[in-house]
């Protein structure tokens, strides 16, 4: 995947991780005492409360890791020149491409000419061969006819 799509995916991952973090913590957090008028809630050290602390650590580590990966991807951006530099390079390349195309066209035409010449020579040589071997051929034809 190209780097910009990777960056976009990473942004979405950060958002998703943040969503997960807050959602989980909010859902699994134990009750807390709001005011001295109300009694203390049953703060039993069950496995859920322990898990919440662990979850908070794991998920915040994941969030920081996602952010670090985003920074690494940003550093890997091949952002060479500005728009003008790119346009200038495009013009240079276009001119070079045109020249190379002309050269190729010239070579193609010359080689086609030579091909025609060689084919003509070949035809003449074949004709000469046929003319030299005419009597031999007639004998062969008669053989086929008798079979």
């Amino acid at each position: 995947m190209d780097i910009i799509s990777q960056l976009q995916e990473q942004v979405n991952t950060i958002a998703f991780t943040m969503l997960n973090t807050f959602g989980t913590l909010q859902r699994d957090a134990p009750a807390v005492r709001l005011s001295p008028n109300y009694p203390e809630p049953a703060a039993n050290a069950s496995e859920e409360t322990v898990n919440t602390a662990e979850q908070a650590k794991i998920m915040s580590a994941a969030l920081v890791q996602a952010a670090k990966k985003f920074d690494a991807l940003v550093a890997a951006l091949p952002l060479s020149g500005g728009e003008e530099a790119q346009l200038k390079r495009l013009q240079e390349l276009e001119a070079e491409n045109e020249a190379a195309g002309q050269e190729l066209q010239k070579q193609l035409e010359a080689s086609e000419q030579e091909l025609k010449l060689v084919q003509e020579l070949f035809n003449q040589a074949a004709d000469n061969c046929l003319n030299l071997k005419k009597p031999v051929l007639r004998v062969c034809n008669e053989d086929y006819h008798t079979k």
Partner: protein
Amino acid sequence: MASASYPPPPPFYRLYKDYAADPESAPDPPPPVEGSYPLFGANYTTDVVLPSLEDQGVRQLYPKGPNIDFKKELRSLNRELQLHILELADVLVERPSQYARRVEEISLIFKNLHHLLNSLRPHQARATLIHILESQIERRKQAVEDIKRRREEAQRLLKESLQTLDGQP
């Protein structure tokens, strides 16, 4: 139970009554739409330019200007995002009823991030074009070299064969 029927189709079909006999009697199809057009109450546009953030009613957090240092802006937006996430966590602990503003700011940062990334796409397109042109030039030069070599080979063979033929009595 009242059954509502669909509205009737537009009455343009009557104009095409004699189409089989005379194709010219029917009206031409309408030309394609250009510019902006309304569709089901929303405005769309046929321009391929990326609409700026102000057009979408979103505040722009990174500085405007002709040349934006994308890497720096992306990194600073990332740091802002992390800060705001921490702020949200704090607010949820201390004053839970004030979460809305923090959530709004976080979504604003995300929109800015995505807009920055989208504005990198034209640059990527030009870079791809440059790459394609370079490889095409390379291929053409390679073809020219190949043809030159083969032509020289063919001419050498021709000369040799001529010499061989001349050598015969």
